[in-house]
């Protein structure tokens, strides 16, 4: 059974993620209004927010330690928060600052925090094979750590995911695949891209257990994840877990969602797992004061991270030429500025 501490920690992670993204959204839109220009403002590039997904990140990661690996897709923040990624440096990364997790080279789709073994990437299902690799390393080194790959329901038709199921299964690896089904892949509803309502059914074709759970109930996610992760920890092989979540926002910031009915959107907004978990907390005897405290401490952490990030210096242009290699070839520069840039000076 879930403990009150678990409930509180999950609640904290979910509230932090929600508040964090609300603040990111504000910052992101700065300078992009009134006519939305993706390349303007302090946070350029794409931004995919995960409001409505929080219970999936929190319910799964509640079982994980720092030495467990998580790979996440293009919509990573709620998972990163739950996994304990350094919030300040993550924020600095999203703002493209020098002290960001990737020194400003990665951005919001490429967050790497090796301290807690978190990584995400922007190509559909791309994190699945590396998660299998982390599981393989755990098996080879005989540790008791596990690996979890998160992906969207739109990603379950991609070869990288399907091949990974088989490789993890045949090698009996401690890997859990978590499919976040938010009904949409950008503008494409699930039933337009596959005949299988329950993606967890795919597991059977690889001789792997598959379960589907509804994230309206964070505790249900927690329980299902416990079983899957426990199985991996006990070295009984991989599992597939599909979690029904909701996309409360557009696919990315700036998405007009013209393809989506108001009703669908409203339904997603109505079913908020944070509210439900709050009720669960109360049912477990947690009082208003404690809940308020959890919310306000989350708010503080978020503000602190965002303020800190905004004060961080931008990288130097020349930094772009570094970090292609961990061990850069000596005496041979393959990345150098354009000739004209170094050899002539600005306006001549």
């Amino acid at each position, binding site marked *: 059974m879930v403990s009150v501490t678990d409930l509180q920690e999950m609640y904290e992670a979910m509230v932090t993620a929600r508040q964090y993204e609300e603040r990111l959204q504000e910052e992101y839109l700065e300078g992009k209004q009134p006519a939305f220009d993706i390349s303007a403002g302090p946070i350029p590039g794409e931004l995919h927010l995960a409001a409505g997904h929080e219970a999936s990140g929190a319910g799964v990661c509640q079982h994980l330690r720092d030495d467990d690996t998580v790979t996440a897709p293009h919509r990573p923040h709620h998972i990163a928060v739950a996994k304990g990624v350094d919030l300040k440096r993550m924020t600095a990364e999203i703002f493209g600052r020098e002290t960001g997790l990737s020194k400003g080279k*990665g*951005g919001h789709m490429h967050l790497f925090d090796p301290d807690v073994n978190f990584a995400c990437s922007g190509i559909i299902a791309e994190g699945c094979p590396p998660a299998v690799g982390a599981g393989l390393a755990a098996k080879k080194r005989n540790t008791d750590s596990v690996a979890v790959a998160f992906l969207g329901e739109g990603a379950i038709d991609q070869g990288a995911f399907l091949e990974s199921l088989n490789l993890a299964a045949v090698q009996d690896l401690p890997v859990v695949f978590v499919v976040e089904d938010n009904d949409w*892949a*950008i*503008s494409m509803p699930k039933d337009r891209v596959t005949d299988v309502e329950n993606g967890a059914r795919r597991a059977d074709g690889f001789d792997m257990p598959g379960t589907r759970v509804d994230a309206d109930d964070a505790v249900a996610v927690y329980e299902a994840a416990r079983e899957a992760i426990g199985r991996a920890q006990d070295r009984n092989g991989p599992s597939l877990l599909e979690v029904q979540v909701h996309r409360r926002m557009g696919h990315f910031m700036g998405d007009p969602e013209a393809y989506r009915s108001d009703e669908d959107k409203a339904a997603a907004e109505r079913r908020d797992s944070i509210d439900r978990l709050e009720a669960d907390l109360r049912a477990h005897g947690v009082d208003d004061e404690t809940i308020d405290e959890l919310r306000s401490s989350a708010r503080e952490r978020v503000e602190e991270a965002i303020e800190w990030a905004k004060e961080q210096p931008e990288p130097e242009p020349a930094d772009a030429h570094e970090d*292609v290699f961990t061990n850069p070839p000596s005496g041979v520069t393959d990345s150098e500025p354009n000739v004209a*840039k170094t050899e*002539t000076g600005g306006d001549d």
Partner: protein
Amino acid sequence: MAQQEKDPAEGGQTDRSLTMSRAMVEAIAHEMREDDDVFYMGEDVADYGGIFDSTEGLLEEFGRDRIMDVPISETAYIGAAVGAAQAGMRPIAELMFVDFFGVGMDQIYNQMAKNTYMSGGAVSVPMVLTAAVGGTYNDAAQHSQTLYGTFAHLPGMKVVVPSTAYDAKGLMHNAIRDDDPVVYLFHKRLMGIGWLPAPDGPKTPVPEDEYTIPFGSADVKREGSDVTVVTLGLHVHRALEAADELADDGIDAEVVDLRTLVPLDTETVRDSVAKTGRLVVVDEDYRSFGVTGEIVARVAEAEDGLAALEAVERVAVPDVPLPYARPMENEVIPDAEDITDAVRAAHGDE
């Protein structure tokens, strides 16, 4: 994304200006009306109209059977386009960002590009693979590349890179009618999308009637006598901007827009260099083992090529993945200043 631009109703008017996306879509719509075998497959190409407006408005006219949303299975649907093309249809398949090529490259490269040759010409693959390319809006290493060199290197695909609405339409007509596989790479920054403002250049007058631009014909977008700048895509406009600035200093740059990489119009490039004696190659792809090296070599190996050549400069993305933060992205993607600097260097003004 919602497209502001609308086609004026007047037929035949030739000074009507269109964004590049409208021009592309106009050619596609025309071909679809003419030929039932033409259809379009991709992710978010139906209701959404293409993330970069590549199919905006087509669903309404042609319906879901011909403007097809498909699963995020690039290998399956690009390969399906190959199969449908071999069965005599004329599919257009969209790879949303060229950066995703790696998930479908086997079908692109070992089927689409090679089946004609491997069958000794018994089979044709009349399809178009469209893909958005390019950076300048900080979308980082997996969403900002052009990969011109990667596609041009591998034989069997024609590779098209329009820089203006006029070219985009004529090249698209040609691409769909061509009996061979065509990779049509459109630069996001040129499309004239509401949320990603284009520079001035790509929006041009576009005839309402159909017309084709043959592959392998580079276009001299600006004549000049001192230095030849060979480029394509977005960088045509940056080169023209540079040329304007250089003109103030009395340097007269010729700007050659390649328009297609395969076939490559070596002759126009060589003729220009024969005139100017100085070559600056500019692109938005990685510098090494790509377009810039090839252009230099094509000139150098020509008869009297070396003799004609007094100076060579390459301006490209240095060999680093695309960084996210603005100062670094600006550093690696060549801008007009990088081009003026290179032209001055080639001109001997260092």
